[in-house]
């Protein structure tokens, strides 16, 4: 069943700035949906519109089948976790979590029960009497999550809840929130600018840019079939490599000294129907070193020769950073001895994993697999 539905939702500010444009989105009950995009793309605005903290200037918003465009935040049956925790500094952890329940006139016993249960889930039993300023960042964020849990809302909204935490804690909290989602069987709408967070947490991900939802899909579909160059470059780390060029004969050619990739017949016939200028995309992990004895797949063809400018030893693998005529590229190749300065390497691209985009519009050109 649909829990949250946005139809043509938009936000235009008084000064004419359009923060969100024509957003269609539906969150299924029990789903974990992530809104991701670079800062300023409108993802937080969209979330705040669902919360009722920001007015909706176009379109309709339904929560639990009810039209809530003009309903006050407190009557939308939602709870929200903020980036900077937004705990009430003058209240104890217990009172922070109980605040919403008290306002809703829950019985004292019921409040105690719910807060105690949430505290157990989140491991906060020992600090219920503390005030927020006595807590660490991780504890504060747990309290903020606890404050949302006790309300047992229809939808949980998260606004970049982990970005104030250090890297290690972030990974841990990521798993905790994910586990919480399964335990509570809750519907969650989660905003982040971190595509790794999005990929690891979301059932589905909506990638936003400049107020527009570019693609809404499962993590793997986003990764394998990005609808345009922006999504392709945003999802994945390190980012996809792009080569601007055109189809010449049966090969993609980047230009003088650049990549030359001989293509399959299917790829050639699909590209030939296009406008001419083509962007070839290949992920760093689909690049192989020629003749290094690494088990390159059958589809890998010698494509480019580069002189790496930076070599990152990751232990298990090596990141080769280089530049080609139309931009930088990164290859994630098998562990190898360190290169001599100025030494160049031949790289092969896995033909089965190539992505093609229109050179003008950036839209994906399907090439039959």
């Amino acid at each position, binding site marked *: 069943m649909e829990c949250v539905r946005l139809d043509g939702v938009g936000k235009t500010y*008084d000064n004419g700035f359009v923060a969100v444009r024509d957003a269609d989105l539906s969150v299924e009950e029990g789903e974990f949906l992530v809104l991701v995009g670079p800062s300023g793309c409108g993802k937080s605005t969209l979330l*705040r519109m669902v*919360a*009722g*903290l920001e007015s909706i200037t176009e379109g309709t918003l339904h929560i639990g089948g009810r039209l809530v465009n003009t309903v*006050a*935040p*407190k009557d939308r049956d*939602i*709870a*929200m976790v*903020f*980036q*900077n*925790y*937004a*705990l*009430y*500094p*003058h209240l104890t952890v217990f009172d922070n979590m109980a*605040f*919403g329940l008290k*306002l*809703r006139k829950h019985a004292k016993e019921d409040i105690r029960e719910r807060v105690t249960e949430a505290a157990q889930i989140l491991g906060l039993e020992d600090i219920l009497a503390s005030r*927020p300023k006595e807590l660490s960042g991780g504890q504060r964020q747990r309290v903020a999550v606890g*404050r949302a849990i006790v*309300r047992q809302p229809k939808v949980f909204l998260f606004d970049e809840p982990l970005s104030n935490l250090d890297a290690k804690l972030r990974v841990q909290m990521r798993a905790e929130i994910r586990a919480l989602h399964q335990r509570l069987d809750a519907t969650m709408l989660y905003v982040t600018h971190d595509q790794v967070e999005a990929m690891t947490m979301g059932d589905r991900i909506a990638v936003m840019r400049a107020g527009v939802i570019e693609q809404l899909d499962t993590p793997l579909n986003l990764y394998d079939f990005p609808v345009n160059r922006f999504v392709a470059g945003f999802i994945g780390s390190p980012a996809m490599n792009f080569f601007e060029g055109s189809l010449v004969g049966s090969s993609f050619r980047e230009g003088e000294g650049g990549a030359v990739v001989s293509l399959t017949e299917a790829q050639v016939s699909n590209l030939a129907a296009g406008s001419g200028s083509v962007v070839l995309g290949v992920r760093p992990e689909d690049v192989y070193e020629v003749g290094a004895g690494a088990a390159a797949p059958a589809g890998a063809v010698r494509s480019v020769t580069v002189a790496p400018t930076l070599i990152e030893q990751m232990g298990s693998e090596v990141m080769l950073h280089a530049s080609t005529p139309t931009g930088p590229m990164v290859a994630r190749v098998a562990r190898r001895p360190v290169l001599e300065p100025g030494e160049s390497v031949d790289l092969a691209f896995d033909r089965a994993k190539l992505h093609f985009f229109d050179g003008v519009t950036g839209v994906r050109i399907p090439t039959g697999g």
Partner: protein
Amino acid sequence: MRKALIYLALSAGAVVFAYPFVWMVLATFKPEAEIGNLSLLPSVWTLESYRLVFETIPIVRAFLNSLVVAAVVIASVLVFGSATAYSLAKLRWKGRDTVFNLMLFTMMVPFMVMLIPLYTMIVEFGWTDSLIGLIVPFMMNATAVLILRQSFVTLPTDILDAARIDGCGEWRILFTIVWPLSIPALVTAGIIVFIGNWNEVLWPLMVIRNEDWMTMPQMVALFTVGGGAQARLGPQLAAAVLLALPIAAVYLVFQRHFIASLASTGVKG
């Protein structure tokens, strides 16, 4: 050596500032004949000056009048002033900045300019010779709004949003979230309003003729300058001390908050 000089200079400064006040307080305990020289300690301690004050004028009644006026004015300024300040600091509405600038502008206008129009209005409303006439013109205070606004602006907006989602309306946010986090600013605004109101002489002199409704500074002024004390210094000084007492008390009680607020802009979450 350098340090000693600094201490010496500072001590001299302290004496210059403190001596007149200390002298005044001690002089009220001297017999009338002894007042007039610069010596500090009385040869005989006496409460005669105070007895004369209480005998000659209804100063207790004036004190209560002042207290009622100050209490109502402070309560009003804190409630309505903080609501205004909250709206100016944290709510979004058309013309907000214009209103804020207009409010700042009213602070530049001297009270004297308002005196005649205000007096005419109070007379028209029939509020002369009543506490209402002393209270209503001061129920709002731009300085207090400014102090409160500057403090409220520093509160993280997310906390207020969290409260909205938790179920608060704006008034409840103001009183259950914003107030507890802005105590130093509230105290400062309250003290400034109190001192200004307590010391106000001109306005009561205009609207109050009936001794029953006179405020303390008005009564003390009429008593000392207006001839009620019959040129005796003792009762005049005693009345002045009584007038200054509440101010000193308020300052002593709230000193910590007052300094905290002047030293920092507010509380952070």
